[in-house]
């Protein structure tokens, strides 16, 4: 490539990036002003959608940086959700106080799972995560005085006094989603992210430069679990309740489905698409009766195949891997 052609290509790429940035900024602005025009039903549903998008980011993070598939991220989301509810029940503190604690609890649970499973990979790790997801509801039911048993717990306290409940349930998950994506965007430039990406593609090369496999696995699981816990905490806040039924094996499977639909994207747009698929698709199909699972599967196929048919540049942007 000549210098002139290179400069022209760089300029075109720069113009393309600027175009996407403007589009992204306009989309975010639209989401921030949406409650002014949309009704309570839509703000409530979209709040759940943003919280789900954060939990989906946790699955995508593990795929992108760890090269592993987890079917246990519903468990880490439950850790965050129950942390918020239990802190409110026993200490009377709102989400703003319990959210950082939820992230820490999620990370610790992630570490506790990752350490004994640090030498598992691929299908073996995935099956181990299934076991964790299957065990969770039983564990929650075993301690009813803390977890509320079958009934679960309520999350009623306002996080931002003076703002209506409906708006809090919309804006806090939205802000949480934007914050998590911003933190992940910053993380991508760090030495830790580069080391994780290299060890995923070439473990022996990374080890030769001082990156340890066990460090990589523990870091990925802890960070992924912390993100899932933040998503779970905001989900509890937006839906005002937590119960064992909210965090079954299916929750974890649907988070994985959402992550696939988002193409493992770590962007606001990609994760929002995944969150919308999880949250809105069942509502849109609600009137179809027995046809719901079939239509849901067809919609999933349409999204995955359709997005895969998009031009490479669009997919790269959607997946958040464009330079």
């Amino acid at each position, binding site marked *: 490539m000549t210098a002139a052609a290179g400069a022209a290509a760089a300029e075109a790429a720069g113009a393309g990036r600027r175009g996407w940035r403007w589009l992204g900024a306009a989309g975010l602005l639209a989401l921030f002003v949406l409650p002014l025009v949309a009704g309570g039903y839509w703000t409530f549903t979209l709040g759940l959608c943003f919280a789900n998008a954060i939990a989906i980011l946790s699955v995508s993070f593990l795929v992108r940086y760890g090269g592993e598939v987890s079917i246990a991220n519903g468990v880490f989301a439950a850790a965050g959700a129950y942390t918020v509810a239990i802190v409110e029940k026993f200490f009377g503190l709102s989400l703003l106080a319990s959210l950082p604690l939820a992230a820490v609890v999620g990370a610790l649970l992630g570490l506790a799972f990752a350490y004994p499973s640090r030498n598992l990979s691929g299908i073996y790790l995935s099956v181990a995560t299934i076991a964790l997801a299957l065990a969770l509801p039983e564990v929650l039911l075993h301690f009813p005085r803390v977890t509320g048993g079958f009934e679960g717990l309520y999350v009623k306290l306002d996080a931002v006094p003076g703002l209506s409940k409906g708006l809090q349930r919309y804006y806090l998950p939205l802000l949480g989603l934007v914050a998590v994506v911003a*933190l992940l965007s*910053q*993380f991508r*430039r*760090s*030495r*830790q*992210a*580069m*080391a994780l*990406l*290299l060890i*995923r*593609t*070439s473990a*022996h*090369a*990374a*080890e*030769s*430069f*001082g*990156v*340890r496999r066990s460090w990589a696995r523990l870091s990925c699981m802890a960070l992924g679990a912390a993100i899932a816990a933040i998503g779970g905490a905001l989900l509890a806040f937006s839906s005002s309740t937590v119960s064992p039924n909210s965090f079954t094996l299916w929750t974890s499977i649907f988070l994985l489905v959402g992550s696939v639909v988002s193409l493992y994207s770590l962007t606001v747009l990609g994760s929002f698409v995944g969150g919308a698929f999880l949250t809105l698709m069942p509502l849109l199909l609600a009137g179809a009766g027995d046809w719901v699972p079939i239509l849901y599967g067809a919609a999933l196929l349409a999204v995955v195949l359709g997005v895969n048919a998009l031009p490479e540049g669009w997919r790269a942007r959607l997946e958040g*891997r464009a*330079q």
Partner: protein
Amino acid sequence: MSAAMAAEPLVVEQLALAFGGVRVLQDIALELRAGEITGLIGPNGAGKTSFFNCLTGLYAPQQGRIRLGGLQLERVPPAGRAALGFSRSFQHVALCPELSVVENVMIGLDRQSRAGWLDAFLPLPRGRAERAANRERALAALSRVGLAEVADRSPTELPPGVLRLTEIARAIVGAPRVLLLDEPAAGLNSVETRDLADALKRLRAPELVLVVVEHDMDLIMEVCDTIHVLNVGRLLASGTPAAVRANPEVVRVYLGDDDD
């Protein structure tokens, strides 16, 4: 690091490695001196890359000792050897396609970096300063191998020769004490090989143990001070390029006659 410590050789004694019943290396004993460029040659399957993997700790030999100066290395894991200053390139290019060229090179500085998890997630001054300094050092290493202009490109867009040079830049960026290059000229055209030979000569330093595995005999004979020849896991010959070229056994099993 003192000059005396820095100039210490890497000594291998009675090294043996086997996978199941297959003996990959047997009774390897040699001294890799600092300040020299040492060549390691031999037919395919001779055990050259396995020898490198033993030196960097990726393989655990069943027998023998590896010493860097007075330090025994058998129980030191790969990450620990990297911390001691071991660095290498790979026979099959091992770069991450999701990272740019300069980011791949910056990984060579990971073991010397101190930025923690807070720096990773927040734009704190210390982390930003370290990242900028690492980028500058990576750019300088890329310049040394003539690749400064592709620093921000993706490895997926570049030809194999450029990727090999990128691996060398990653291996040298951390100012290693032991540098192991595994077939650095594979996939390079004649001009790139010429540039590589010049780059290797510039890498020669009094404190650096530099070992090159290579099949390009012109390159090896031109840049190396000492050459060791491996054949089916055993050390066949050692000596200066002229002595190795004149060794009839080496000619028979590897180099071949000029008439061939």
